[in-house]
C-alpha cells in the first residue's frame, strides 16, 4: 500500500483522456512505479512528447512536461538533455509519431547516443485521428484510409532501433506491467539512448494487431543467456516472425552525446582563450 502511495505521488491529478480499455493505462502505471522505485525527484524529471494518444502522457505525470508537435519529441528531448545534462529526460510517443512523421529523427538520436529514454507505444493504429493505418499495422489491413488493403509493409520498431545503433533496445508489453517497469528502470539507468518498444492494444480502433490473447499466446521472453552486445543475434530475436520476443535485445556502452560535447570543449580549449577579447583577435 505504501508503495502504491509513492507511485501515486508521480501522478499530476489530470485525468487521462484515453478510452476505457486502452493499453496505455498499463504503461502509465509501470512508468510511475518505475519513477517511485528509482526515487526520482519530480523537479528533475522531464517528459517530452509529440502528438497522438500516447503523447498526452506527460499531462498525467507530475514532472516538467513538454507536449510538442507531431513527430518532434526526440529532437526536443535532445535539446533539453544538451542544455541541462542533470535532468532525467524521457521521450514518449506512438508508432505514427515516431516512425512515420518523425521517423527521420530516430536514426540520428540513436547514433548520437543522446542519454535519454524513449518509450515508443506501439498500438499499430492512429487512435487519436480515429482509425487510420500506421507504419506498424499488419494484421488489420482494412482501416479508414486503407479500405482496399495496405500498400506498404510494416516496420518492426525494435529491429529498426537495433540497426540504427541504439545502445539499449528492449520490448515490453503493457499487460506485463512488472516486466515493463523493470525495462523502464533499466532504460533510465542505461547511460546512452534507450529505446523501449511497448506493445499496447487500442481498444477502440485496432484490437487485432496488438490483441492481448494473441500476444500472450505468441510471446516468448528473450533467453537469459542472450548476449546483449551481440547485435546480430539481437536483430534475429527482434525480427522473429514466429514469436513475439520480450526483454532486452541490446545493451552496450559507448560515449554519449554529452560525453562528445565535453570532449569537443576540451579540444577547443587548446585552440584559444575562452573570452570575447580572444575571439575578436582573429578579426583584428
Amino acid at each position, binding site marked *: 500500500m505504501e508503495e502504491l502511495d509513492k507511485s501515486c505521488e508521480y501522478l499530476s491529478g489530470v485525468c487521462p483522456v484515453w478510452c476505457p480499455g486502452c493499453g496505455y493505462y498499463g504503461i502509465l502505471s509501470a512508468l510511475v512505479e518505475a519513477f517511485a522505485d528509482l526515487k526520482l525527484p519530480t523537479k528533475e524529471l522531464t517528459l517530452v512528447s509529440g502528438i497522438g494518444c500516447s503523447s498526452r502522457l506527460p499531462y498525467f505525470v507530475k514532472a516538467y512536461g513538454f507536449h510538442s508537435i507531431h513527430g518532434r519529441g526526440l*529532437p526536443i528531448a535532445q535539446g533539453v538533455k544538451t542544455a541541462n545534462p542533470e535532468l532525467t529526460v524521457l521521450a514518449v510517443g506512438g508508432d505514427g509519431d515516431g516512425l512515420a512523421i518523425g521517423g527521420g529523427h530516430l536514426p540520428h538520436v540513436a547514433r548520437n547516443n543522446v542519454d535519454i529514454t524513449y518509450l515508443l507505444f506501439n498500438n499499430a493504429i492512429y487512435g487519436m485521428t480515429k482509425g487510420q493505418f500506421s507504419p506498424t499495422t499488419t494484421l488489420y489491413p482494412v482501416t479508414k484510409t486503407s479500405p482496399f488493403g495496405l500498400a506498404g509493409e510494416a516496420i518492426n520498431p525494435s529491429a529498426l532501433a537495433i540497426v540504427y545503433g541504439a545502445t539499449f533496445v528492449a520490448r515490453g508489453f503493457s499487460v506485463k506491467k512488472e516486466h515493463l517497469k523493470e525495462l523502464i528502470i533499466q532504460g533510465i539507468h542505461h547511460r546512452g539512448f534507450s529505446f523501449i518498444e511497448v506493445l499496447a492494444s487500442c481498444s477502440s480502433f485496432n484490437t487485432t494487431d496488438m490483441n492481448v490473447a494473441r500476444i500472450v499466446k505468441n510471446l516468448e521472453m528473450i533467453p537469459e543467456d542472450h548476449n546483449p552486445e551481440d547485435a546480430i543475434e539481437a536483430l534475429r530475436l527482434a525480427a522473429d516472425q514466429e514469436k513475439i520476443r520480450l526483454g532486452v535485445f541490446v545493451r552496450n556502452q559507448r560515449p554519449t552525446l554529452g560525453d562528445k560535447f565535453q570532449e569537443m570543449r576540451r579540444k577547443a580549449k587548446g585552440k584559444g582563450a575562452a573570452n570575447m577579447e580572444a575571439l575578436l583577435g582573429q578579426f583584428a
Partner: protein
Amino acid sequence: MQSDLVLRVAGESGEGVITIGETLCKIAAREGIHIVTFRTFPAEIKGGSCMIQVRLSERRIPYHGEGVDFLVCLNQDAVDENLPDLKEHGVLLCEAECDLPEKNPGWTAYKVPFDRIATREIGSRISKNIVVLGALSHLLSLPKETIEKFISEKFARKGKTVLDHNLDALQRGFDFARSHLAKKDSYRLPKGSGRKRLLMTGNEAIAIGATAAGMRYFFGYPITPASEIMEWLAAHLPKMGGVVLQTEDEISAICSVAGASWAGGKSMTSTSGPGLSLMSETIGLLSMAEIPAVIVDSQRGGPSTGMPTKTEQSDLLLALYGSHGDATRVVMAPTSVSDSLRVTALAFAVAEKYQLPVIMLVDQALSARLETVDRETVERLPQGSRSCASPADGAPFVRYQLGGSAVSPAALPGTQGGEHMVTGMEHDERGNFACDEETHTAMTVKRFRKLAAIESDPLVAEFCTRLGDENSEVGIVTWGSSAGPVEEALAIAKGLGISAQAIIPRILNPLPHQELKTFFGKVKRVIVPELNFVGQLATLLRSTYRIPTIGLTKVKGVPLAPSEIVEKIVEAESTLNARSTRAYGRAG
C-alpha cells in the same frame, strides 16, 4: 587626393581573387580605413567566374560603390565581363595577354605578365595572386611591410617553402610594376585614421553577436549562404563552454533549439529560406509554448532551391506570417555587418525577455560581405534576460498567468516546485490543454500583448533610424541590406539638389508604429526599395497604414544600385512639383 576608392578584382574561382581582395581589406582595416565589400560566388563548386569589390574610404560608408575606380582582371573573361563597370577615368590592371577594346574612353591600362612571373620566375602558378598584390602595392602605394607581415602570418603554418614562394611573388610583382609601369593615374589607398578596425563578414558578425549575447547552444543544418555562421560557431563556441550540433534537418535543428531553450539555455539556429520553410510549424510551437529562440535566415534568390549563391530579400512575408494560426513572433533585419552584430544581440534580448521566437533576416550579400566594425560595437550590445520564478512549494506552478504583465515568469526544469506542462495545444494558466472559448481568446490576447510591449520597450528605441532631410516630402522606407544603397542614394540626390528622407526600421514585426506614423504624416511620396518581386515590405505598409506606395523592386540576385533609387527619387520629386493629379506611381 581622393578619400574613397572602389577596387574590384575579377578572375576565375581558384585563382586567388578573393585572397587579393581580403588581403587588401585586412591591410586597410589595420590602417583604420573604413571598408565595405561585395563579392559574387560562382554556382560551381570549383571554377567559374568570381569577383570581389572593395570600397575603401576615410569616412564610414554604407555601400560597396557603384562604378569601379580600379579594376584588376586576371584573365580575358574577367576583362570582358567587368570592363563595362569601370569608370571613365578608371584604372585597369590586367594580365599582359588580355586583349582590350580599341575604344578607350579615358582609362589607364597597366599590363603585367602575372602568369609568366608566377610560373616561370617563381615556379609556382598558385602564387599568381600574390604577384598581383605586389604590383598593386606599388600602384596604390600600399604599406609593403604590412603586406609582408600579413603574408607571413597567413602562410607561416604552410611551411617555409610556401612562405618563401609567396614573399618572392610579392617582391617580383612589386619590382615588375616599379620598373615597367610608370604611374599615370592618381589613385592610391585612402588615408586611415590609424585606429585599427575589426574586419568581419556579416555571418561572422552574427556568430560573434550571438556568442557575446551568451548563446551557448547552436543547432543547425548546412545551407548556403548561412553555413559560415555554424562553421564559425563550431570552431569557437566550445571554447566558451557551448555546443554546436549539426542535426539531420532544419526541423530537428529548431526543435533541439526549442528543447535547449526550454531547459534554460540561450539557443539559436541559422538557415536560409528553404530551412525557414521547414521550421514554420515549430515557430508556431515556440510562439504557443512561449519559448525564446533566435532563428537567423540568410535569404537567397527565388522560391524552392532558387539561386543559392545570389542575394534577395524575399522571405519577409514568410518570416512575418509563416506557420498556421495566429502565431506571434518578432522579425528583425539588420542593415550592415556592424548592425548585424547589434541586432543579433537585440534578438536574444527580446527573445529571452518576451519568451518568443525572433526571426532575424539577413541576405546572401550581407552574410558574405566583409566590412570594418568598430571594436566599441561589441562592448555596447543590448541586453535582456528571461524572467524566472521561485515557485512556492505545494501550490501548482502557474506558467501562463493571465492578467498583469503579458510575460509570465518561467520555471526552468530542475526548479523545485516548478513542475508544469508546456504545450503546443491551447492551454490554461497551468499549461493543461483547454479549448473553451474564453481561454483561447484570453491566451491569444496574452501572446499578442507581448508584441505591443516590445514596440514601446526602450530596448528597441534606437533600432529605427531616420536619414536625409527631415522636411522633405519624398520619403523612403526600406529594410535590411537595401538600407546601404538608400543611404548612398540620399547623398547622391542631395548632390543633385534633390532632398529626400528615409526611415529604416530594424524591427519589422512589431513595426515601430509611432515613428512610421510620424514619418507618413510628413512625406507625400513613399518609395519602398527592396529586393523581391511583389514588394513585400510595401505590401505590409499598405495593409497596415493604408498608404499608397511607390515600389522599387529588383530580382536580379544582386543588391540595389544607388542610381536605381536616385532615379525613383527624381521621379517622385517631379510628380510633387508638377502637382499631378496622378500623384502616385503604380502601387507595388
